[in-house]
């Protein structure tokens, strides 16, 4: 049941009214509504995996309590380690087992050794990468005394299975999320209206930008002879497709949360306006980056601090390798992660790693030429990363780069990019302009600075018309659902 489907609209309307109109003074009722809705939502997508979700939730709930009630530090640490092993083990088993088997098999074959390693037919549970990360962060945070263990099972189960985020994030952190469910929520009109705006912008990005980019990419590669310049166009479209698809999904998830009175963590902050790679990762898939920073990079860099910048480089390479591998069981993801890790090295050497850089502007709010140049450089490098990310294999990625590195790269394909029949270039530019103007806001459709309601409504109507008019009718899955 996709957020963009009519079925989901009906589902959410029912949930919304049950949540706010019945027993409105009872927080337990709201929490139960979220729980039932989340399991129904998850069950519709993949009912066979409900037991896994429920059992994992129960185990980590128990572990959280045991970590705090353990009499010794050693015992407490043991429960934490059990939690981490279980969380990582679940993830590794479902997502990477066959990958490791295949990789070992290939490695032994390359060494001339014949081993009988058999891959299993493993079905990957939907959202496993997201809910296992939530569970792991919970046991670590409880162990680190950053939060009290949750003693309300329904609240904890809501945190794990919260339906707007279970399939594709954002990855909420336990302290911020659980504390919201432990108190009763009263309807906040401003929050709900903002949620609607954010959903609308998310729909725009998914339906208008991402799905049209998908069609345009298909058009490019349906051509019998693709010139190098169109490979470049394909790569550019791919990064916009991925951004619009994933950030659109995140916006919808956050908006749905707001409609239920729950703040979901932010996942994107206009990453194309980043002026260095560190800033890019502070803006792209922020919930994953923050998670990895807190639980992998920071401890690792602490351990390696005696090696100075070299230690920092190793920590960032390991961290980015894991960020890449989080996406799935393909070496392309590992190379994607390492590629981004390597981009950090100049920043670490020059000491700009931790410096926050905001984009500078000149007259009329236009970006400063130096900032613009930096943004374009980062964008170009990230586009190269997306080529690796999207490729079937590392060889395919190299082949793509080779196809791009041809003299006919200069043969103009701007016509395709700017004026194809689905106007995708124009739509992408429109999205970027709106996001640039609104870059200090949480989302691009935050129009609270417009004083008059008719002015705001006019813009909403225009966005709705654009969604209806430019609907690509392809009803594509969200890309990040597969991770």
């Amino acid at each position, binding site marked *: 049941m996709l957020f963009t489907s009519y079925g989901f609209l009906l589902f959410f309307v029912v949930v919304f009214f049950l949540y706010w109109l019945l027993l409105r003074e009872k927080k337990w009722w709201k929490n139960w509504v979220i729980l039932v809705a989340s399991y129904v939502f998850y069950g519709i997508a993949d009912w066979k995996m409900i037991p896994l979700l429920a059992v994992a939730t129960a185990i980590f709930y128990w572990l959280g309590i045991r970590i705090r009630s353990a009499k010794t530090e050693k015992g407490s640490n043991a429960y934490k380690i059990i939690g981490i092993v279980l969380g990582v083990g679940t993830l590794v088993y479902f997502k990477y087992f066959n990958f490791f088997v295949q990789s070992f098999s290939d490695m032994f074959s390359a060494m001339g050794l014949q081993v009988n390693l058999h891959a299993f037919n493993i079905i990957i549970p939907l959202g496993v990468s997201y809910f296992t990360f939530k569970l792991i962060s919970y046991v670590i945070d409880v162990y680190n005394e950053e939060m009290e263990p949750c003693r309300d099972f329904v609240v904890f189960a809501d945190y794990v299975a919260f339906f707007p985020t279970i399939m594709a994030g954002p990855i909420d952190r336990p302290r911020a999320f659980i504390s919201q469910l432990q108190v009763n929520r009263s309807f906040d*009109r401003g929050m709900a209206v903002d949620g609607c705006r954010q959903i609308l912008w998310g729909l725009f990005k998914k339906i208008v930008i991402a799905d049209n980019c998908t069609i345009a990419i298909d058009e490019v590669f349906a051509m019998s002879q693709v010139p190098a310049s169109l490979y470049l166009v394909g790569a550019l479209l791919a990064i916009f497709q991925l951004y619009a698809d994933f950030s659109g999904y995140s916006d919808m998830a956050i908006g749905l949360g707001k409609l239920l009175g729950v703040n979901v963590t932010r996942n994107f902050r206009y990453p194309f306006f980043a002026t260095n790679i560190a800033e890019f990762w502070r803006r792209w898939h922020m919930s994953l980056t923050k998670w990895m920073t807190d639980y992998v990079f920071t401890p690792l860099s602490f351990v390696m601090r005696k090696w100075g910048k070299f230690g920092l480089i190793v920590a960032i390479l390991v961290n980015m390798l894991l960020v890449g591998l989080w996406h799935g069981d393909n070496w392309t993801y590992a190379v994607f992660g390492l590629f981004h890790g390597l981009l950090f090295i100049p920043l670490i050497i020059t000491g700009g790693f931790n410096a926050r850089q905001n984009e500078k502007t000149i007259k009329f709010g236009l970006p400063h030429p130096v900032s613009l140049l930096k943004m374009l450089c980062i964008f170009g490098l990230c586009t190269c990363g997306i080529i690796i990310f999207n490729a079937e294999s590392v060889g395919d990625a190299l082949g793509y780069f080779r196809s791009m590195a041809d003299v006919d790269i200069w043969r103009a394909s701007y016509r395709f990019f700017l004026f194809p029949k689905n106007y995708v270039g124009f739509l992408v530019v429109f999205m970027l302009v709106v996001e640039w103007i609104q870059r200090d806001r949480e989302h691009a459709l935050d129009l609270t600075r417009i004083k008059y309601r008719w002015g705001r409504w006019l813009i909403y109507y225009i966005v709705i*018309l654009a969604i209806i008019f430019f609907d690509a*009718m392809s009803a594509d899955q969200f890309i990040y659902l597969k991770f």
Partner: protein
Amino acid sequence: MKKFIIDIVIFFALIIVAAIPVDLAISAHKRSVTDDLRYSQWNDMLDGNVNADLIIMGASRARMHLDTEILDSVLGVNSYNLGMDGTWLNYQIKKYDVLCEYNVKPKVVVQCISYGSLKYDDDWYPIETIFPYFTNRIMWKHIIWESNHNYFQKFLPCYRYLNYARFARPMKGVIHKGYLPSDASWSVEGFTKKDSTDFLYDERTTVVFEDYVRRLQHDGIKMVLLFPPQYIGLTQRIAGLDRMYKYYDSISAVYNIPIMDYHYDSISYDTQYFCEPTHLNRTGAELFTRKFAKDLDSVLNSAGN
């Protein structure tokens, strides 16, 4: 909460209120269109302007291959071509049902068939052809209610027009009673694209088709099954051609319906008459219609005897 819900209701109500007159205006405009085949056929049908002795039913081949002006002059009848691109038999038959609600039933039905006619699809294609008629009760009864339009398209004013605006391709030209030929010349690319194809068969369509045949017989309407010309190279690539002939031969035998087959006619061997493997161009269509009209005349006369 109350204010939020009221705001939401007002927000969407305003859209709907504003969209109703726009929808009515667009529909009224399209109801008067005569130079776009997507609407002119339906407009003629719903205005009761068809009233033909002979109608041609089928998909794009019917539309492009049979010149009604030639048929009228050679056969001395009033003919009308109801062929429309991309439609399968199940939808062509619904169209016939709408025709009969507003017009005198024909005396002869020429039913164009091909390897794809028995496919089943609940897509109404081209989907926009029925958009202007969403206020018509008969259209709802026969087509819209069962079509695969979603509820928003069915019930929200204007939505369907906006939603499909980018995909709509006009079918403009000089239209003569449903006949709209192509002036394109042979395209090799078109031929290479059609690598191979299969005889498409779905029992849901055959049930509807055979019921339609029985209804025509019950109403005393003569029926002719027509395999119009297609480029021989394409015919040779159709898998299951035997199964196709077997099926239609059995229909022909059971209901005593003549089949006129031009798959192996000399026209089918000459690319100068085609714009691509499946469709004749204007020259080919005119040549074929003359030939067909003569053949039909003798078939009908012998059937009449």
